[in-house]
C-alpha cells in the first residue's frame, strides 16, 4: 500500500466533493441538500489543509482559509435553516419542489 500523501488526501477530498454534489443534485429534502453542501465545504477545507501542509508549510494561509470557511459555513447553515423552517411554516413541507414558488 502506498504511503499516504498529498494525492491520497486529494482523492478523499475529490470523492467527498462529488459525493456532496451528487447529494445536492438528487436529494429532494432541503435539509439533506444542506447536509450535502456541508460535505462540499468540508472537502474544500481538506484541500486547503492538505495544500498548506505539503506545498506551503512555511505559511499558514490554508489554515486561515479553512477557519474562515468554517465560520462562514456556520453562518450559512444558521441562515439556511432559518429559511427552511420558515418555508416549512408556510408550505408545511420542505420539499425542494415546493420552493419553486419562490421564483415568483
Amino acid at each position, binding site marked *: *500500500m502506498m*504511503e*499516504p500523501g*498529498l*494525492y491520497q*488526501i486529494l*482523492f*478523499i477530498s*475529490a*470523492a*467527498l*466533493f*462529488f*459525493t*456532496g*454534489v*451528487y*447529494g445536492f*443534485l*438528487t*436529494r*429532494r*429534502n432541503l*435539509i*439533506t441538500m444542506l*447536509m450535502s453542501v*456541508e*460535505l462540499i465545504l*468540508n472537502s474544500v*477545507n*481538506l484541500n486547503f*489543509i*492538505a495544500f498548506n*501542509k*505539503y*506545498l*506551503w*508549510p512555511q505559511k*499558514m494561509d490554508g*489554515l*486561515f482559509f*479553512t*477557519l474562515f470557511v*468554517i*465560520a*462562514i*459555513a*456556520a*453562518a450559512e*447553515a*444558521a*441562515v439556511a*435553516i*432559518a429559511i*427552511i*423552517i*420558515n418555508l*416549512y*411554516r*408556510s408550505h408545511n413541507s420542505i420539499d425542494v419542489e415546493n420552493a419553486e414558488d419562490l421564483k415568483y
Partner: protein
Amino acid sequence: MNGSTIIFYLLAALTIVCGVLSVSTRQIFRAAIYLIFSLIGIAGIYFWLDYQFIAAVQVVVYVGGIVVLIIFSIFLTQQAGELLPKQKIGRKIFSVLAVFCGFALTMVQVYQHAFYENDGEAVKPVVANIGKQMLSTKQGGYALPFEVVSILLLAALVGCIVIAISKKEETA
C-alpha cells in the same frame, strides 16, 4: 506499512463511506448521523496531519454546532420514521454520470499534475502561532478578514432573527 498509514486509510474509508451513506440513505436522521461520522473522519485526518487546532474547531463547530442545528431542524420539520421522497430515476442517472465524469476528470488532472512538494522550514500550526497571525495587522496578518467574518456572523445572526420574526407577525 506502519500504524500511521493504516490509521490514515481507516480514516479515509470512514470519511468517504459515511459521506456516501449520508447522501444515499432514505432515512433523514441516519443521514445526519452519517454526516457526523464523515465530519469526524475529516477531523481525524486533520489530527493525522498534525493540525490539532483545526481538528478541534472542526469537531466543535461542525459536529457540535452545525450538525446539532441540522438535527434540531429535522426534529422540527420531520415526522419520525418517514422516508425521504425518491428522486426521479432519470435525474439520478444523469447526476451519477455527471458526478462520475467530474470526479474522473479531476483525478486525471490531479495525477497528471506534478506537485512541487516544499520541504522548507515549517511553521508549527500551534494555537500560539495561529493567534498571533490571526490578530496581526502587519503583512500576512488576518485581522481584517477576521473582522469581516465577525461582521458576517453578526449579519447572519440578525438575518436569522428577522426571518423568524416576520413570520410570526404574519401569522399573528
